[in-house]
């Protein structure tokens, strides 16, 4: 009996450690594998050239990733600008002012939004957002665009990120002790003042981390964006023009991998870039969280 117990104890112990180790080294394994596959590309062009050049012509051996990185960042920032304020205000209202019934109603809605597959968001983007941008928004601003644009991608992404950011914000605001808010109110603060000075201040690290995760998710989202963003290799600040984010590059050209030399390395490099950028985003937000927690 004792022996059995010793065996089981050691087994459960090692299992747990092993699972943890696997999870910890997983990003490293992925990164190293992508790097090894991308090595042939580095012989062709230097790293600054790969990232900084905007000359994309795979058959001629020109791989400049800047238009793709730029498009990715642009779409992501747009989606963040659309979704962050909406989520913040909605979360404050839900946790501070809304009735219990509304909260009970909201939770399934958020879950459903989060559970919708991205291809459905993409279809919805083609049916609703693309015509909205092309036929309503653009003519109002006197611009001509068919609607497949960075802006459409940003809007679709924003809608996709809302459930994630909103859910996390609600959880964050819920952790603020009720006593703090009551103390503020009893000192004569208005409800808005108590939200501004107590709730937001207290949960700032949580707000930053939910925004960070939202951005990281938006940066990597592929299918829905690909369906509405227009997929044109170009550098433009005009949100009504088409863009070509990194994940779309990988997904679209997966099939070209074998017919053009070096293309497989190029796509692996694109994937590696995506991974690194998401890592950097996470690190930046980690730093912010660390800073705000210290205060």
């Amino acid at each position: 009996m004792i022996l059995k117990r010793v065996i089981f104890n050691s087994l459960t112990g090692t299992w747990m450690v092993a699972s943890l180790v696997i999870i910890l080294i997983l990003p490293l394994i992925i990164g190293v594998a992508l790097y090894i596959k991308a090595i042939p590309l580095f012989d062709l062009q230097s790293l600054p050239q790969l990232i900084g050049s905007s000359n994309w012509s795979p058959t001629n051996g020109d791989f400049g990733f800047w238009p793709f990185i730029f498009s990715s960042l642009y779409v992501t920032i747009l989606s963040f600008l659309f979704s962050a304020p909406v989520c913040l205000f909605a979360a404050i209202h839900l946790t501070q002012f809304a009735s219990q019934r509304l909260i009970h109603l909201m939770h399934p809605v958020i879950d459903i939004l989060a559970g919708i597959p991205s291809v459905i968001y993409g279809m919805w983007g083609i049916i609703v957002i693309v015509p909205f941008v092309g036929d309503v928004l653009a003519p109002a601003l006197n611009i001509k665009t068919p609607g497949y644009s960075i802006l459409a991608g940003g809007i679709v992404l924003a809608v996709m990120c809302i459930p994630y950011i909103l859910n996390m914000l609600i959880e964050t605001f819920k952790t603020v002790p009720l006593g703090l808010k009551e103390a503020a109110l009893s000192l004569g603060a208005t409800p808005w003042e108590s939200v501004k000075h107590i709730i937001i201040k207290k949960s700032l690290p949580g707000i930053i981390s939910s925004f960070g995760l939202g951005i990281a998710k938006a940066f990597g989202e592929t299918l829905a964006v690909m369906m509405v963003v227009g997929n044109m290799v170009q550098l433009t600040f005009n949100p009504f023009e088409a863009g070509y984010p990194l994940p779309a590059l990988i997904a679209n050209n997966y099939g070209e991998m074998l017919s053009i030399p070096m293309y497989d390395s190029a796509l692996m490099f694109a994937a590696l870039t995506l991974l690194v950028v998401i890592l950097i985003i996470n690190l930046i937000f980690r730093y912010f969280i660390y800073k705000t927690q210290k205060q």
Partner: protein
Amino acid sequence: MKKLKFVYVLMAIVIISSCVSKKQKEKTLNFSGAFALYPMVIKWAEEYKKEHEEVRFNISAGGAGKGMADALAGTVDLGLFSREIAKEEKDKGVWWVGLCKDAVLPTISANNPYLKILKERGLTKEEFTAIFIDGSITNWGEVLNVGESKGIQVYTRSDACGAAGTWAKYLGGKQEDLNGIGIHGDPALAEAVGKDPTGIAFNNTIYIYDIKTGKKRLGIEVIPIDLNSNGTIDPEENFYDTFDAILKAIAEGGYPSPPARELYFVAKGKPEKQATLDFIRWVLTYGQKFIKEAGYVPITQDKIDHYLKKLK
């Protein structure tokens, strides 16, 4: 003891189910690839199942490039492929058989304001090249000699696909040379160009014409190609009205190749699975009679014999 019994039962279930699934795996055929060939393979699968009930099919469309990549990676039994097989792909040990033919046609919206003029004069290969590749023609007035004119909105495919590859080859380029907004998938491209009165694109025949009525799908029109570059569409160049007419033109060579092209099954080396070989043999023999009905053009008997030899 009870627990032990449970474990035995569980093990038995796992073992039995693994046997079943292995047998099932032998009888399941997986396909992925070209949108152009997708409706044809669906048709073949339906007919084949009537005779061979035990065979199961998984068919998905994702562009010819995906078909090739999946086939070479071994994740599907056969890839559907719709452009010329590149040298790099042959070097990787691709095995293929041709099945039937179809074509890529230049398309515009039925609401295009210059539809009538376009149908009368068509566009030459040089004009298509200027629009799709050089970008030297950017509005309809430049090419049609009409006063006020609207800009041309070029659409292309974003996914690695046979239609874009074949159309680019006709114009003397590669898929990456084609300008325009990239749309994922053939049905979505047809939808996008149909909705934009100034748009121009290219589609596979099967996504332009409705197989039941034989007419063009609602909202989409074909630009006739001015083959002899004399500035008008002569009666022998005008075969775009019905599905049958264009299929006849492809079969007789009236419509040039490319953009007409052969469609293939591809695999990494000759398939070893018996079910796969049986299905290919059936397609090249009995299956040929469904080709016309499904809206494609049969290949010549010489070619079929050649491909049948590859199965042995």
